[in-house]
């Protein structure tokens, strides 16, 4: 039997319409895969009953010949999206027990299109983090493991198909079609904040997932797990019903197994919504129809400022390979300058916490979620402060207080207003490049491959923030951008390349991503080591 959860949306769409299997069989296969993947901690809740009833309805639509692209397709939903009657907690204890009375616009659109929800996916608390470790549900573990000595007693093996391997100064490929490597059992992060979404797609627990991206939270985990992720133009996708972090930066997007699936998902998610005043009332193109792979004459900008001091050689090599691949596909490569890039990260860490401190003011123990117990003689102010101390994790508290500080009297101009002016300069950098005829910009997605859990000290938040240095400028400027898996490093971990597009031109962006995907030929999958506990040790295939 085909490995059903390993299918792309496009492949499953064809097979479902042909009747090769039913939507119910597909949903059951994904639910079984998700249940067997408990060690990854990617899912906060599995919604088997909803999945089965949605799958049965989808099967009916397919039989009746009324099958939109996503009809019968099992998806994972980041816990940040409100889903009616299903726990939606933003991975925070402060929303413990919260079951929304309404559906987010994005999930409502996906369900109308026939999609099947297998469950909610783990993430950093309130999407604040780059490693999916700040979650109230505990950290997400990446399905990927480094090459290296594993546990001697139970050798951990992983099958690799022939992906390009990125080495410092050398580009190599495997000679054989497949090869077994010993794997280290050091747990790695899938990235964050949409780490559960990335892990679930990479581990084949569902066909695709949705995430959100405030400073790189779709693209960085996509790069860390060898999948494709797209952050749309700000305003392409409605934010109604997405638990807010930083409203001027947040945008939902697809996380998928390939670029075509990204195009299919984006079309279903996009479109005007009266419930979100920033959601644009412009037509949604057929993104999938734009995937010709022909990028001859396209101008690709390479920003010198993204060549960071101390960037690992493997990232430099990856970037150069991406440049070569696009040039070989007929694109023109142009050096460009985005001179204010270095200010993007510090400006982001003023603006995002400032907006978060305002958005998260609503969690006070009155309307939903957790409320702290009071001692005799204590009043409502004690209730607010203790509820928030008990309910928010450390990183969320840190950012709320930071945001409160930069908005407070005497510091508003020095920090918040200055950051908003710097934001204008960052956007103008991109506008100048695009006015000069650049169609898209190519950079690495992340400054490194995935790191091990605990390898970045929690007491050094700035080091963790540096993960987002290549992705944050995109959110500051409101642009669309995607991460495409482009190779493995010497330790066998995926690396991604980022393509940044012109505003509202996701179709052209996806087509360039499609050309890059075809040239890179990335097909590696993690070995399913987590299934060992289920007595299925040898399933390393992918």
């Amino acid at each position, binding site marked *: 039997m085909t490995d059903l959860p390993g299918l792309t949306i496009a492949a499953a769409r064809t097979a479902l319409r042909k009747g090769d299997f039913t939507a119910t069989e597909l949903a059951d296969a994904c639910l079984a895969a998700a249940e067997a993947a408990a060690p990854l901690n990617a899912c906060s809740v599995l919604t088997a009953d909803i999945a089965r009833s949605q799958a049965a309805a989808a099967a009916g639509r397919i039989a009746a010949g009324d099958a939109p692209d996503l009809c019968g397709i099992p998806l994972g939903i980041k816990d940040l999206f409100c889903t009616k009657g299903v726990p939606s907690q933003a991975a925070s204890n402060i929303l413990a027990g*919260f079951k929304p009375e309404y559906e987010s616009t994005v999930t409502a659109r996906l369900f109308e299109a026939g999609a099947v929800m297998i469950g909610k996916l783990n993430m950093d608390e309130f999407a604040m983090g780059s490693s999916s470790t700040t979650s109230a549900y505990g950290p997400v573990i990446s399905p990927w493991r480094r090459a290296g000595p594993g546990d001697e007693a139970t050798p951990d093996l992983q099958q690799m198909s022939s992906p390009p391997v990125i080495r410092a100064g050398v580009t190599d490929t495997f000679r054989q079609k497949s090869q077994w490597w010993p794997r280290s059992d050091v747990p790695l992060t899938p990235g964050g904040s949409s780490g559960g979404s990335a892990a679930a797609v990479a581990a084949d627990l569902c066909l695709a997932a949705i995430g959100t991206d405030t400073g790189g939270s779709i693209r960085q985990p996509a790069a860390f797990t060898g999948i494709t992720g797209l952050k749309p133009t700000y305003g392409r996708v409605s934010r109604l019903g997405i638990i807010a972090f930083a409203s001027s930066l947040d945008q939902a997007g697809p996380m998928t197994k390939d670029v075509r699936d990204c195009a299919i998902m984006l079309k279903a998610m996009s479109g*005007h919504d009266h419930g979100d*005043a*920033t959601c644009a009332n412009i037509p949604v193109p057929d993104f999938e129809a734009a995937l010709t792979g022909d990028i001859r004459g396209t101008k690709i900008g390479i920003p010198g400022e993204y060549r960071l001091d101390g960037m690992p050689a493997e990232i430099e090599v990856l970037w150069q390979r991406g440049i070569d691949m696009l040039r070989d596909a007929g694109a023109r490569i142009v050096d460009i300058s985005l001179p204010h890039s270095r200010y993007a990260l510090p400006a982001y860490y003023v603006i995002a916490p400032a907006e978060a*401190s305002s958005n998260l003011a609503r969690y006070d123990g009155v309307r939903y979620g957790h409320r702290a117990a009071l001692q005799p003689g204590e009043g409502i102010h004690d209730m607010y*402060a203790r509820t928030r*101390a008990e309910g928010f994790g450390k990183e969320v508290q840190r950012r709320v207080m930071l945001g409160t500080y930069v908005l407070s009297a005497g510091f508003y101009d020095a920090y918040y207003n200055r950051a908003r002016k710097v934001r204008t300069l960052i956007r103008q950098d991109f506008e100048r490049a695009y006015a000069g005829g650049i169609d898209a910009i190519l950079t690495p997605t992340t400054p490194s491959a995935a790191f091990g859990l605990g390898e970045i000290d929690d007491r050094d938040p700035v080091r963790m923030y540096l993960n987002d240095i290549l992705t944050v400028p995109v959110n500051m400027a409101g642009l669309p951008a995607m991460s495409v898996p482009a190779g493995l490093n010497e330790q066998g971990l995926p690396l991604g390349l980022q393509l940044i597009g012109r505003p509202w031109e996701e179709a052209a962006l996806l087509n360039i991503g499609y050309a890059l995907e075809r040239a890179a030929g990335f097909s590696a999958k993690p070995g399913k080591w987590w299934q060992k506990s289920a007595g299925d040790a040898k399933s390393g295939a992918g």
Partner: protein
Amino acid sequence: MPIDKETARRVAHLARIEVADADLAALAAELSGILGFMEQLAEADIDGVEPMTSVTPQGPHHRPDVVTDGDMADRILSGAPDAREGFFAVPKVVE
């Protein structure tokens, strides 16, 4: 500018987050570290630059001026830790 313990106490109060006295010094150090990172912004030349207020500028959306929802007090109260007689219930505010 480094944040001292008193400033940390004030920020925690403004943010309505209870922080134990013993934890204020560590909090002040953490916030100072992050603010130190932000000091780079002081180097940017922002003379004459307008603050960015709209990410993807667009006009206001119009829709018919009609009531589109409401009358759902029970649903709104359903997630509350304490709700009584159609209201959110909180500890006594006025003596």
